[in-house]
């Protein structure tokens, strides 16, 4: 492999940068759970017909409650969970046809828990150098150079390279996790709850770092988070997921200032916001109850049992994700009357 060792990792990009870095087309991931003995096999539709695209350098915020399928979606994009149906295209190439190594050079992931996602027996240097070697960079000086360069970029001191994860604080460990994701110079980084396991006073450091790196390296992000404050701050576009489906997507401003799906409104209304205590009381468009089981989702619009605007039509008819404005789409029969 060593003769194909390029200084920069191979980029089989077409001549012109494609308009879409990632394209999901009617993606579905279904699991079969249960057995014939325990009441029959059921289908769990973790992801059910999701279409999305991401342009180079763009940050898409992916929002939803636990069990809505956002992490399964992330695994599919990483090539770790084969889809049941639909297409994933990276740089215009079908994902299933590409090999894992090449996917890894384009898409990387930052995990929620920096304690669990680093190998405790590997030093920082090894954690960062291994992916390079695996992908064909064997020249020692170059590996060293790139590891040190990456440590600078994420704000880790170079003299810490031979330490083990347990010698770092939570925030520093997340920096190592970010460095590991970026060492192969990917185009897209999936950040799955990157700050929720960190101390509150450390979160700002990591959010600032992610934004700096995005500009510096021209990265695209998928930011999975339940913290809408963070999502609004970081995202260019936002997609809201509920029980395996996208229920609303649009630019960050549209989603936060003119949300059209009752679920999006409920999410925003649920945020304790001490700055707008008075208005918050007025604008409580809350959802009732809890997310239904994905094994047995309600018919029609999945959100209907919790929806304050539920009508007969919501039970009988699945609302399509339709445009309310340019680039802003919502899957609600009343998307134009929600106001």
């Amino acid at each position: 492999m060593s003769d194909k060792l390029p200084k920069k990792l191979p980029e089989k990009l077409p001549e012109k940068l494609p308009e879409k870095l990632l394209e999901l087309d009617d993606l579905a991931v279904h699991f079969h759970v249960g057995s014939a003995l325990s009441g029959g096999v059921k289908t769990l539709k973790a992801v059910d017909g999701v279409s999305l695209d991401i342009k180079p350098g763009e940050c898409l915020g992916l929002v939803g409650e636990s069990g809505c399928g956002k992490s399964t979606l992330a695994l599919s994009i990483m090539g770790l969970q084969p889809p049941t149906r639909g297409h994933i295209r990276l740089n215009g190439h079908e994902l299933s046809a590409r090999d894992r190594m090449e996917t890894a050079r384009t898409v990387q992931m930052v995990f929620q828990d920096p304690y669990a996602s680093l190998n405790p027996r590997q030093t920082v240097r090894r954690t960062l150098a291994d992916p390079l070697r695996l992908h064909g960079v064997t020249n020692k000086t170059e590996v060293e150079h790139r590891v040190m360069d990456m440590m600078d970029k994420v704000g880790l001191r170079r003299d810490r390279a031979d330490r083990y994860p347990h010698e770092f604080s939570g925030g520093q460990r997340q920096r190592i996790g970010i460095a590991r994701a970026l060492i192969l110079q990917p185009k897209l980084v999936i950040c799955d709850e990157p700050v929720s396991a960190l101390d509150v006073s450390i979160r700002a450091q990591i959010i600032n770092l992610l934004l700096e790196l995005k500009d510096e390296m021209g990265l695209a992000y998928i930011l999975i988070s339940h913290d809408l404050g963070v999502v609004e701050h970081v995202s260019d576009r936002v997609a809201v997921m509920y029980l395996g489906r996208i229920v609303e997507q649009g630019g960050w401003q549209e989603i936060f200032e003119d949300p059209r799906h009752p679920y999006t409104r409920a999410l925003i209304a649920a945020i304790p916001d001490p700055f707008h205590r008075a208005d918050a009381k007025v604008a409580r468009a809350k959802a009732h109850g809890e997310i239904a089981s994905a094994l047995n989702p309600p018919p029609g619009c999945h959100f209907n049992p919790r929806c304050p605007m539920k009508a007969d039509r919501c039970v009988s008819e699945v609302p399509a994700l339709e445009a309310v404005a340019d680039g802003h789409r919502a899957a609600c029969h009343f998307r134009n009357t929600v106001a």
Partner: protein
Amino acid sequence: MNAPLLKVDDLHITLQGDGATFNAVENVSFEIGRGEAFGLVGESGCGKSITALAVMGLLRRPLGLGEGRIVLDGEEIQNASAARLRELRGSRIGMIFQEPMTALNPLSPVGRQIAEMFVLHQNASWNEAMDRAEEALRQVRVPSPERRIKDFPHQLSGGMRQRVMIAIALACRPDLLIADEPTTALDVTVQAEIIDLMAELCAAKGTAILMISHDLGLVANMCRRVAVMYAGRIVESQGAEAIFATPRHPYTKGLVDSLPRLGERSRRGRQRLREISGVVPSIAAYPSGCRFNPRCSSATDICRATPPDVTALGSGLVRCHHHE
């Protein structure tokens, strides 16, 4: 004003370890009035949860109660007997914890766990207690409570389990409800419902709340007064609205400024978040002087040498040499 319901006065909590004794909590004082909601905010390891454990008399080795007094409704309880504390817990002090699945008994139907409160603390018969348990489940808005009382905890969702915890905690109409991160394990829309439910039931029963959380926004929304803890000490306390509008301690300021606020980006465009540099110190390596000084941008020599005293400011207090 009447005497406060709970008065914690100069509380110290010690931690034994590595052949040394550390002060995990130092000089913590606060008061909660009858029916008042009071919030204690801080990051993990700041001592907020063990302060609550101390109030409930649940500190276990290696943690121990040092100096200080805990007065509940005129009665000093820091040295109370185990039997007396058991009597108080459940009847005068109710508790809700972060993870309801670990707080509930997995082998007992939830109705029985609620009914136990009436049997133990109010000498009710089991029959009567089960009826009252059903009523208690109805009050926390668990749908079809007559069927749910027979369910085991694993048959309920996270939000429903936390409702059961609330029903148990409030069963005997306690004077004080201690809620330690009650919604951290829940989704945001469920969190909003649970918080509303807690606030509503406590208001109806005149129960005071000691709410413990790392989420300043959540606490400020629910509580009238808030105290912020850092590295074992209360660094600031104020009215809930004031703490956001005019934080006085550099740590509180840092916390308020460092989190992206909803709507801020549309109003002012994307600003770089203000960071608090450094990390939370570990208990074995608390810095001398003000414990926040290595992370504080306005620290001077006096901050490194002398721990600041509490200064009263209006209705609140602040522990900083350079407060404004």
